[in-house]
């Protein structure tokens, strides 16, 4: 910031009224210097792994509330885990900003549907969502499942519905996803290894 001459006048004029007392050498008692209180003193600490790149940095998540029944826990700060052998407490600009990922205004909160040709989202219940999705999948699978190929060989595949798996979901979720996808006979299955 460059203070121009005109701004400088304003700053001076604005500050003067409130400061005249101090200027005369009086200092209020409460002006004793004190550093800001350390905000993590009683925060709950949970260990996790940064979800971005594959360095797999250890992170410490600090949350508000001691997990008592009536307190809703919320993460207030994230920093690197100094015990982690790879990142040793450091984090890159993405990892250091994870707090705002957790609290992004664009986090999805409710199941929604956009009907064919519509211009908007409509909130629906989880049960409605699962039922409608399963019906669409079943209809497509029952219609297009290929038990045998043209030569009569057993192929048991369903290629008219595809699945793109995540790149940052856990092994546990990936393992379950794979089981489900193959049990349905899906082949149009890929993850983000390529892009």
């Amino acid at each position, binding site marked *: 910031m460059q203070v121009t001459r005109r701004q400088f006048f304003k700053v001076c004029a604005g500050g003067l009224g409130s400061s005249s007392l101090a200027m005369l050498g009086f200092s209020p008692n409460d002006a004793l210097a004190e550093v800001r209180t350390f905000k993590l003193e009683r925060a709950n600490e949970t260990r996790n792994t940064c979800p971005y790149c594959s360095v797999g940095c250890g992170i410490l998540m600090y949350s508000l509330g001691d997990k008592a029944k009536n307190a809703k826990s919320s993460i207030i700060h994230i920093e*690197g885990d100094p015990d982690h052998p790879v990142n040793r407490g450091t984090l890159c600009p993405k990892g250091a900003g994870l707090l705002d990922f957790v609290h992004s205004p664009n986090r999805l909160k409710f199941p929604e549907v956009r009907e064919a040709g519509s211009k908007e989202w409509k909130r629906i219940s989880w049960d409605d969502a699962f039922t409608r999705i399963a019906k669409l999948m079943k209809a497509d699978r029952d219609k297009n499942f290929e038990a045998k190929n043209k030569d009569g060989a057993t192929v048991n595949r369903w290629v008219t519905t595809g699945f793109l798996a995540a790149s940052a979901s856990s092994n546990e979720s990936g393992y379950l996803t794979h089981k489900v996808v193959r049990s349905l006979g899906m082949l149009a299955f890929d993850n983000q290894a390529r892009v």
Partner: protein
Amino acid sequence: MALQSLDIKARSATTTPSPSVRETMEVAKLIDISKCIGCKACQVACMEWNDLRDEVGNNVGVYDNPADLTAKSWTVMRYAEVEVEQNKLEWLIRKDGCMHCADPGCLKACPSPGAIVQYSNGIVDFHQENCIGCGYCITGCPFNVPRISKQDSKAYKCTLCSDRIAVGLEPACVKTCPTGAIVFGAKGDMIHHAEGRVTDLKSRGYTNAGLYDPQGVGGTHVMYVLQHADQPSLYSGLPKDPSISAMVGLWKGVAKPLLSLGIGLTVLAGFFHYIKAGPNEVEEETEK
């Protein structure tokens, strides 16, 4: 009350002496520019720890974002593409922010009691509850660091994470730095560390490598290792021999009582503009 771990060494606009019996360790942050990858993790960690969120700005044709220090950006990376040797491009990336001078010009210039304090460990901290928003700290700063917030007309800058240091932790920027370009510890240890780095850089062909700990401000508690210590201005206008203008001393002796009496405002404004214009000119020159 003041935390005993961070004893006050100096206090703005205060004539009573500070307690000086206890001796705490003098700390320093060392920024090794030769190791800096300009990732801005320090900027993010600083904002996150201090609960600040600056504006989502614009790209103005460079990597620097936010484009300058603000009341909500207490540290920024400044990127400079230079060719010290013909055809050998260097991308010198400097983390800018408060240098925590041993002889702080901001504190000297501040007219409001207790708005700026210096702890015995070397940290220079702003206490906004006492800040009157006059902006003299900006004028007094040889590095052009403090910024006045448009929101509350108070001055802000890096605290060296005094709240973390008070409980025995390192500053947020230091902890996060992925490459260890920022290190923190006792000032003596930091100087020792810097010596090792300078030796390494010299062995890699940077014959003018050196430590930046300018004595004109009594030395600083934020120091740099520079590949080209002979030309600090290459690093986005880092001043070569920063010092507090003699005018600040004059202000403390003469101008302050004048102002307190409510006269000579215009004179003073011109007076400070003059001080301010000095370093600005130097900056413009070195940026070329």
